[in-house]
């Protein structure tokens, strides 16, 4: 474990924002057997310090796989992934992740879920308490600190998971379709909140989604991935104002860019469907 993780300075950032460099990464599922499936093929991507980057592509294009590789959850088979802290070999608290299905600890209350990461990150008791309260409040779960995940709705569970991840102040925030299970209204609110949190904390965010509008709304840059095997087809800069609220949905540039990206994604989606037959 890194030294910074064991002794974080109080009330300051435990981990500085970090760039991510992905070079020539390929990944095959079931590589040891004859019927191995190539999920990622020669991925090259550099994500800058404090950038909000979206990985966009049809289902099964390997975008989650790429995220898990960055997270260190599955070992890199070919190529190299590194952050400012060095090559990625295992999961670590400098890269926190929010999963699609929340992955809260069901036997812990909301507060204990948040405290778990803080304890592991080495915050002292008073700080743990204070940070837990702050982040639970940020995701509007005050009053539900002592509820167990099974007592909460999907949206509330996801907010708890986000609070848990943000509380440890990771330099890199990995998000795997975190709003996929939410209803449209909650989703919109969460997107706006995430954008605000990101703007205030300047973390590097890698956000996986298959929702074009979500990607354009959130990202600085979008990587459009091809259908299996996953390759990065296009990298698109999102030149929209930093301040993005509800009104941006009617912005002409926003609409134009969304349509452009939608056409690019659609090609891949069509290819994916053809490939399946």
């Amino acid at each position: 474990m890194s030294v910074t993780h064991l002794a974080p300075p109080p009330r300051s950032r435990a981990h500085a924002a970090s760039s991510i460099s992905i070079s020539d990464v390929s990944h095959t599922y079931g590589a040891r057997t004859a019927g191995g499936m190539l999920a990622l093929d020669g991925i090259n991507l550099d994500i800058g310090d404090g950038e909000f980057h979206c990985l966009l592509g049809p289902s099964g294009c390997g975008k989650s796989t790429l995220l898990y590789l960055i997270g260190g959850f599955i070992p890199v088979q070919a190529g190299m992934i590194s952050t400012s802290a060095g090559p990625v070999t295992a999961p670590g608290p400098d890269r926190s992740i929010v999963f699609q299905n929340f992955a809260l600890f069901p036997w812990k209350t909301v507060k204990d879920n948040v405290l778990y990461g803080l304890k592991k990150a080495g915050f002292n008791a008073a700080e743990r308490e204070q940070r837990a309260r702050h982040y639970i409040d940020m995701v509007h779960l005050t009053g539900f600190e002592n509820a167990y995940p099974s007592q909460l709705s999907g949206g509330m569970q996801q907010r708890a998971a986000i609070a848990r991840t943000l509380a440890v102040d990771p330099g890199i925030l990995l998000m795997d379709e975190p709003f996929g299970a939410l209803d449209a209204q909650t989703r919109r609110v969460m997107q706006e909140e995430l954008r605000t949190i990101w703007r205030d904390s300047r973390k590097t965010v890698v956000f996986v989604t298959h929702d074009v509008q979500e990607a354009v709304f959130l990202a600085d840059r979008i990587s459009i991935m091809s259908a299996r095997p996953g390759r990065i087809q296009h990298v698109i800069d999102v030149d929209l104002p930093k301040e993005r609220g509800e009104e941006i949905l009617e912005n002409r540039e926003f609409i134009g860019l969304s349509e452009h990206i939608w056409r690019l994604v659609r090609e891949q989606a069509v290819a994916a469907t053809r490939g399946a037959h």
Partner: protein
Amino acid sequence: MMNMADAKPLAGAGKSPVQKAPRPSRPISPRMVDIAVQVAVVAALAGIWEFGARFGALNPFLLPPLSVVLGRIWEDLIAGTVPVDLGLTLYRALTGFAIGAVIGIPTGILMARSALVRWFFDPLVSIGFPMPKIAFLPIFILWFDIYDTSKIIMVAFSCFFPVVAATCAGCSSLDKWPIWSARSFGAKERELLWEVYLPMAMPQILTGLQVALPTGMITTIVTEMLMGGRGVGGAMIMAGRFADSVGVFAGIVQIIILGFVVVKSLEIVRRRLLIWHPESRK
């Protein structure tokens, strides 16, 4: 079997995954009706037993009236033999059960986590689980003594297998997401064991314990019957030898009560430990 026992509460809870407020209290809850009906059935059977024996429908030697049996328990209670026998039986059953659980739970976890441990234990558990464990009693008597040690080891041996099987099954099918979460927060492999695997597998481990506990009770009674001496089983076999049917039934009634109390206590422990689980909010 264990999976079925576990799936039942989960399936029931699935109908209402989101329950924000407790149900408003009604004067008569369905649960109270359930309990009332169950008590009535037991009372009716006890009544049939009592009056059937009393009015000659049943031979009072073969089936002495319940009141006579209860009277005997009362006499023995005052004489001091019931507390000694019940206490001994309970001591042997619970000690054996605890030993079986303390060895069985870590073994099950290690089997699920380590191929080496699994290779060694898997054939042993596969053979041992369906085997009638009591067959080992003569050997245990030879190896250990004819007093408490061999009885407790016999009970521990019989409790070990259901605990190991359930724990191993519970730990092998763990959801990977909470494990990944913990690892991303910096949990080490050794910490994962206590902090993630054990609580996650807890529902199935408890199911294993709930299978093991009655098994342990049965083994205790049978062991006592076969080996004689003090204890409820020993007292019953003595009563049987002297054709004292009242004494035998007194033993049966004591075992019923003891078993009920012990099994219910474990259910309460389960509810306490799984307060977070949807099954606890039915």
